[in-house]
């Protein structure tokens, strides 16, 4: 993934696109987890969700190459 790419002369950070991608993917994962009932066993759901987003975003940011 290049650091930045241009869109009609405007510089856009590559990380931003990855973040958007992760957020969309995450929404699906979250609904699945809720259906399985994972959130009933989590002590602090908000903290859990934030942790999950950070983990997934880091993974995608570090290892996914386009």
């Amino acid at each position, binding site marked *: 993934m290049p650091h930045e790419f241009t869109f009609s002369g*405007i510089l856009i950070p590559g990380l931003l696109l990855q973040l958007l991608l992760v957020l969309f993917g995450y929404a699906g994962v*979250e*609904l699945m*987890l*809720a*259906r399985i*009932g994972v*959130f*009933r066993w989590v002590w602090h*759901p*908000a*903290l859990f*969700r*934030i942790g999950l987003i950070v983990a997934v975003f880091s993974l995608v940011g570090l290892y996914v190459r386009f």
Partner: protein
Amino acid sequence: MSQRLPKRAEFLQALREEGAQTLFALRTACAVLLALGLAFRLDLDRPGSAAVTVLIVSLSQAGMVLEKSFYRILGTVAGGTAAVVFVMLFAQQRLLFTVAVAVWVGLAVVGSSWYRSFRAYAFILAGYTVCLVGFPAVETPALAYHVAIDRVAVVSLGILCGGLLSVLVFPRSTVSSLIGLVRGQVCRFLTLCQQVLTTEMTSGALREAHMSFAGDVVNLELLRGGSHFEAPDSRLRSGRLRRLNADFMQAVTSLHSYHRVRRAMPYADDQSLLLLDSMAAELDRALRTVTGGIPASAQEAVPVASRLRELLSNWDVRVEATLASLSQTLAVSSNEALLAAMFQLRQFGDEVLAYMESYAALSAAQDAVEREIPPTASQVDPLLASLAGLRAFSAVLAVGVFWIASDWTYGFYAIMLAAVGSSLFAASPDPVKAAVGMSKGFALGFLAAVAFYGLVLPRMDGFLLLAVSMLPFLLIGTRWMARQETAGIGTGFGLMLLTGQNLTNTMTFDMTQLFNQSLATFIGLGAAILAYAVFMPPQSRWVQRRVRHSLIREVGRALSDEDEHARARFESRVRDRLAQILTQPMQGEAIRNRWVDEGLTVLAAGLALLQLRDENDPVIDAGFLSQVAAAMAFRADFAVGDILPAVKARRLQLAQALQGADVSAARRFSALLALELALLDWDALATPDLTLTAVEGAIHAS
């Protein structure tokens, strides 16, 4: 001794509330400082805007913060994009640019009136972000994209800080408020059922209950939206909650219809009254837990629902048997009235069963197969919405033209505030009051900003000292924000405090700028207030009449609705309009009560008409039904007396055809009687003398 206990409980309650509010104030102030610090560190152009965003999205409940944040960022992105386009197209011509922006703001206000939730907020944001980005960039068009990106960045940073702190630090859960609301609603409704079914209840008390239920229905929808963002598993209950709300409305309405028929019964003889009341009492007993209490949770509602279902399954057989045995002994007229009342009771039983089943279904984590219900759409008057848009357009354009004509350096601050003010309060029931509340906050915030900027800030070096010295000032604002009554003042205070001093990494101190900027802010907000006060204020007689007439016209609209969900849709439309009426500032209790009575009568008449339409009786054809609807719609202010004899003649005709226990004929008769009773009430409301005496009665009684 016994007197002291409640006082102690009250004191503890007050203490708990105070604690929650102080916690909110502290948390919000910390989030503001966090956003400010990060914005300084990231070297953003306007760190103050990140802090302002935190203030604006800070609501007491975590889910609401996330929902508002989500729509804020959507609106900001849309508005930023539009601003860049406008600057690209019209930067050479200030007048063209101003007109384009004013049109955009006006359209945003029109769009926002279609939503009652935070979705409206996305439209408002899209509207005024154009001003925030476009006007600073119009002098130097090359910077437009940079300004837009900076705006999106500070807003994202602000919602990130505000959202994180509100969900992580002692969050106040939307889900638990939602559960509390649903439980409270069930409890109050079942208490009301008990009062109606077992004892006599006054129409006034029933009206009060209806009004509080109208608020509940709206609040449930709001909390449901917020809980989606807070807890992912609440999404699984979303469909059931919507169904619960729809079933609740239907049950309340048919309870009211039963009350209406029961109230007309004193003319029947004692024997039939006793029979009816014993059946009502039986229904009431079935609505309770084994110990006789009200089900306190969804879990406890499961056995109640199953017992109710059992009672209703053999209800018809029993009714027919008792009627057959009674018909010899009773007079013909009271027999008919009894039949009608029994059918209303039966219908109420069915609907309260549906409500209890929906409530019981909430106890399961997963969805069972869902009964489909139509989506509840908020009812909008396109003309009133366009007028609100036109008002925002005029306010922005007027200030913009003044800016161009006078070549005022700080003019664009005034335009921004005119746009913010005329769109933010457009949906408020009393926009002038809301805007004046905010400008009071601005005035106080201005004083604080002057003190801080002139005396404190020059002595501070580095962010840590800035944060520590600003905290007490911030806390004043956030503490006000924590209380519902002073929230507007608090927000205004915080906004002025944070934007007034143009915080940047390398500070320049210029008191003249602070004064000029604040003056422009006041002028802009003043223009918005003026527009609200002059241009079709929501309190004006014309607007109120229009809202009322559109409610009455729903009857005719429902009759032409051939869909299977016609009833649910009619009900949700009328209730939405009624809730709109209730939020309007009224001239006195008596007028408000009259409007509510009118709405409830419209509801009852419309439902009876819908039922008659579905029965397809040869005596009551479609032409007659639309005649009744037209008579109601024709004149809200004239009596419908001329249609009443026709209704009565048909009822007598049906009564003659009533032989023995023909169930479907009895059902039609019951619906027709309900219609007649509703029209009688309508007549009483529309006859000025009668309402005058009712008002006088209310005055004497108080």
